[in-house]
């Protein structure tokens, strides 16, 4: 889930999101016993700066720390001060490689490059093990995006996304899903792509008025049509949206 808000990000969204850990869609096309219980994470940028980053292994729906962090975020900008912005990212992990379940593998990942703090979360996997010691494929993809960035705006991220996609195909044998969300606190970038199981690798985007919500499945009566494959969406803190097709 990713949210850009000019007001608060209300607590009910986090409750609804945590339900997906046990009731969310799984690769078989329906919820299964494994669910998305291998990890969870939340990141929150306030007015461009990373304010909160918390993650852990395990199931969000069972984690007091998840709800405590959610409540901390939900209390931000309740006054709806003009000019304030919040960007929130949330992830529920279903590990694709057995054994790689640990706090350090929970998304969103956060890295600093040239003084800019970036947060990244991903759904999908590379076909071939990237073979990077101590890193899962999502981290490899994150580093690939960062390595190809020559700016922080929509055009730079679109270019880096295309390069990362090419690398995933040429070097790692392709991917199941390449769905990701990326933020530097000024914008939220949302990308949906898949080579298999497009019914599962979905992303939805909807405008709730004072905030825009993106999620892997519709929550709180979101729009029922997923965003198209291969299009990068960028939502700014003014809620203006840009889009570019990634070739």
């Amino acid at each position, binding site marked *: 889930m990713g949210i850009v808000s000019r007001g608060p990000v*209300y*607590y*009910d969204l986090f*409750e*609804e999101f*945590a*339900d997906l850990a046990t009731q969310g869609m799984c690769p078989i096309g329906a919820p299964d016993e494994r669910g998305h219980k291998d990890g969870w994470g939340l990141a929150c940028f306030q007015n461009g700066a990373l304010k909160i980053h918390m993650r852990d292994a395990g199931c969000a*729906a069972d984690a*007091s720390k998840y*709800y405590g962090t959610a*409540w901390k975020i*939900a209390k931000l900008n309740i006054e709806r001060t003009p000019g304030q912005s919040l960007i929130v990212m949330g992830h529920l992990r279903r590990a694709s490689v057995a054994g790689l379940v640990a706090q350090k593998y929970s998304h969103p990942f956060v890295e600093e490059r040239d003084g800019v703090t970036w947060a990244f979360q991903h759904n999908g996997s590379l076909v071939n093990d990237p073979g990077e010691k101590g890193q899962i494929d999502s981290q490899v993809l994150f580093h690939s995006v960062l390595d190809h960035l020559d700016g922080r705006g929509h055009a730079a991220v679109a270019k880096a996304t295309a390069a990362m996609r090419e690398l995933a195909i040429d070097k790692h044998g392709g991917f199941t899903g390449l769905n990701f969300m990326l933020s530097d606190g000024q914008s939220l970038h949302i990308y949906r792509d898949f080579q298999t199981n497009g019914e599962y690798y979905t992303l939805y985007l*909807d405008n*709730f008025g004072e905030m825009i919500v993106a999620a892997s499945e519709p929550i*709180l*009566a*979101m729009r029922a049509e997923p965003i198209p494959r291969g299009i990068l969406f960028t939502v700014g803190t003014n809620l203006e949206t840009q889009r570019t097709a990634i070739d």
Partner: protein
Amino acid sequence: MSSSEFTQVHGTEFREYSRKPPGLTGRAFRLRTRRIPTFIRLRVVTSGIDASLK
């Protein structure tokens, strides 16, 4: 008011909070709606469910 009547009147489902927001006591539910959330507290009575909006 029964839960099904409540759903009919408000046009939405509701679900019990996993972790109640601070300040809410008793059984608290959230509406599954895109509107700004409204907390509801439900009081179970012998004739059904008595819902009050907060």
